């Protein structure tokens, strides 16, 4: 009986390292996590389709991809927040089951969320102790001190948490995760909202953890930080891994994989370009959303189709809502439509806003197609069961909605919900505002939607839509505004820009030019 030599050697080597580096009671100083063919379906929506990924101990693994590519879903599967439809997860070559987040924590898989999940009313020490079974403030205080020193964080145990910056809360959460034995550390956009100095501290902490053998997964939009920190990177698009690179990375290849390779677009749809103003923002500021709006000034004229690009929460949503009068600007002025036809009562019905979250913000669950159409139109005072049925039938035909006048909005599929929303756009609408108009739609529905929208758009109106899909913007918009951190970083006719420029701007890489 002889053992196969290489395996034997490796085992010995590991044992050696284990003794060398971790005289603590860690059974698995080196943890390797492997995802094999993970699928996750939400009803008909395929969020993940066959993701396989291996994260090695002692390495930082970047995961990049545009919004909706499935990064967050994948991480939630890994931390036990949602259950995978199929596929397996191996931890040190053993298959694990993750029923609850607690399972993941016990297996040493921890996640640092974009917004730290902590208790603002409690002190630093209380938060550090939270979830611990034993209550021993003195011991924990010493441990906290030791960990702080190790990572170079400065933290007083008594400070109430609400006095800390997001970065400091993140540091605390990181220490807590390490203390509870996290060996697979997942970070979701960790540098959002923290200072450069804190970012440096964080990065050095992550590097030191990597050197101790932790497996670290970094989910990020920001290619710079991925460049700076990661040993390898996986690129996700549409629910699967489409590329993989080792350091040094090829930036362009990553971008290509993220956003898909595009045939250089033909031309933006030709529209009648009037110079009548439809919408004018002057130094508009808002603190809503993650980044707010920072002194936005922009003018939109008749016939324009504006695509808003940017990372989630960079200001596009707030911009649309202010334009739709769903939010008030905190400073600055907003003018809708040219002064001459600005009769106050008609402007409201001339503006329509289609939110991305159709069922939560645009439609009324439990109400039927007929009732939606009744509400959108001029509702008669008295309503009989037959009122509006004919109109509903017509709309169902015209918009190819699969359903009857009595079908509830929440009983419709995503595509049909979008068709219903389109059917609700009043014919007199001159300013159509949309968030992610083709979200969750398959290619066919998406195309149908656009065709309909462009057909319906009146010559004396304008359309503004936000989309995470650059392809969509380049295909349908005549002008693109790229938002970054509440500012418009790029404002250009789509014919004057290209995919690379926009995707660079999305990650904040060019100077404002307007």
């Amino acid at each position, binding site marked *: 009986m002889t053992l196969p030599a290489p395996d034997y050697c490796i085992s010995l080597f590991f044992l050696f390292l284990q003794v060398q580096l971790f005289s603590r009671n860690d059974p698995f100083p080196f943890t390797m996590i492997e995802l094999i063919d993970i699928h996750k379906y939400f009803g008909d929506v395929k969020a993940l389709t066959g993701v396989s990924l291996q994260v090695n101990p002692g390495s930082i693994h970047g995961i990049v991809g545009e919004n909706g590519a499935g990064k967050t879903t994948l991480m939630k599967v890994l931390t036990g927040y949602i259950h995978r439809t199929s596929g397996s997860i191996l931890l040190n070559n053993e298959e694990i089951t993750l029923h609850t987040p607690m399972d993941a924590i016990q297996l040493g898989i921890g996640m640092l969320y974009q917004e730290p999940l902590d208790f603002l009313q409690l002190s630093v020490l209380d938060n550090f102790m939270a979830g611990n079974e034993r209550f021993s403030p003195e011991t924990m205080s010493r441990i906290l001190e030791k960990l702080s020193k190790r990572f170079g964080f400065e933290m007083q145990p008594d400070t109430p948490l609400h006095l800390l910056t997001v970065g400091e809360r993140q540091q605390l959460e990181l220490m807590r995760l390490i203390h509870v034995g996290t060996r697979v550390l997942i970070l979701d956009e960790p540098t959002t909202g923290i200072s450069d100095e804190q970012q440096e501290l964080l990065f050095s902490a992550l590097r030191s953890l990597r050197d101790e053998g932790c497996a670290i997964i970094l989910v990020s939009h920001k290619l710079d930080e991925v460049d700076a920190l990661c040993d390898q990177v996986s690129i996700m698009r549409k629910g699967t891994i489409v590329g993989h690179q080792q350091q040094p990375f090829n930036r362009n290849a990553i971008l290509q994989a993220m956003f898909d390779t595009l045939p250089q677009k033909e031309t933006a749809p030709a529209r009648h370009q009037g110079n009548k103003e439809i919408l004018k923002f002057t130094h508009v500021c808002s603190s809503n959303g993650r980044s707010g709006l920072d002194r936005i000034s922009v003018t939109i004229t008749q016939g324009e189709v504006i695509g808003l690009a940017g990372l989630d929460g960079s200001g596009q949503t707030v911009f649309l809502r202010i334009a739709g009068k769903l939010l008030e600007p905190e400073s600055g002025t907003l003018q809708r439509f040219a002064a001459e036809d600005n009769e106050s009562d008609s402007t409201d019905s001339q503006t329509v806003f289609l939110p991305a979250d159709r069922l939560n913000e645009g439609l*009324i669950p439990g*109400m*039927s197609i007929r009732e939606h159409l009744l509400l959108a139109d001029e509702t008669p*005072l008295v*309503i009989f069961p037959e009122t509006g049925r004919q109109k509903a039938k017509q709309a169902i035909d015209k918009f190819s909605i*699969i359903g009857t006048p009595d*079908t509830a909005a929440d009983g419709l599929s995503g595509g049909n919900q979008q068709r219903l929303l389109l059917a*609700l756009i009043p014919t007199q609408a001159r300013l159509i505002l949309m968030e992610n108009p083709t979200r969750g739609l398959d290619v066919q529905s998406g195309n149908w939607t656009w065709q309909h929208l462009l057909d319906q758009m009146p010559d004396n109106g304008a359309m503004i839509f936000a989309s995470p899909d650059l392809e969509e913007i380049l295909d349908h918009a005549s002008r693109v505004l790229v938002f970054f951190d509440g500012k418009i970083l790029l404002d250009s006719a789509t014919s004057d820009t290209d995919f690379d420029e926009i995707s660079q701007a999305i990650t904040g890489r060019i100077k404002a030019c307007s």
Partner: protein
Amino acid sequence: MLMKTIQQHDLTHLVIRFFCITGLGFGAVCLLLFTLHLSPITIAKSMGSGALSNWIRISHMLSIWTPLLLCSSGLLFTFRAGLWNIGIEGQMIIGAICTTAVLRLPQAENSHALFPALAMAAGLCGGGIWGMCAGILKNRGGVNEIFGGLGLNFVAQGIILWLIFGPWKRAGIASMSGTNLLPHALWLTSPAGWRVAPVALVLSCLAFLLTALLLGNTRFGLRLTAVGKNSKASRLFGIKPELIGLTAMMLGGGLAGLAGGLQVTGVYHRLIPAISSGYGYLGLLIVMLAGYRAAAIPCIALFFACLAAGSIQLPIMLQIDSSLSGVIQGACVLSALLVHGFQTKRRNT
């Protein structure tokens, strides 16, 4: 076809819910009674006969049904608008106070026909205004209608106690037991052998029908439903959720106030501290059990009225404390909530 229309979906849903609730409720009650060595059949018999065995009893039961129906109708408006009108008790109390105030006017005794009607109207308005207060607190002050309503309930309770113990007390007497009886001429009369004033019965049935009609067949009802189901989206349809909510609170409060007024003129013939008799809270329950729909409300209100009216038989016939009916009520409600919660949970996963 996977898709279900609202009707189909809700029908099966409602039927399942109805049977689950009754099954669970009765099961729990029977279990409880068995542990107390009581026969559920005897209890059901004596309570049933106590509520329904002759016209006097039926009419007495209807005198409880009337305010329940009114309160439930009022609550339909607020529930439809997605509001929890906990303040309904206070609205009832204020309605009762306003009615009493009108009937206490010195002129009241001489114009018998006019004043009871006027008093009812005053109750309606008083309750409506009280409801509106909760609505305004919500819209302007950002006070959740539950807390606002609770607060206003305390205020109303304070006012009624102060009136009964203070300005409106009986001569030479300071008792919490109530004001002087109203002059006979100002009572809502009931024919001999009736325990319920026909006027009250007619008014509440009318109010209920009107509510059902308003909610089901008008623009206002449609908008109300839209606000209740998704106030965020309703804005996109040009609806002002605040205004609609306020109107709903006002209507709900008005009907509760009317119920309070009818308690004064039709049942107690005076103002007493417990004038609301907890009917407002019971109304909340009824509407919830009815699945926020008008159709089932009269029946469920009837059930609760029977429980309340029949419970008095327990101490008479069986020397059992009549709070048992409260236990039965509680068991029904808990089962209802359980079934509802279970269904919701199953639908979400």
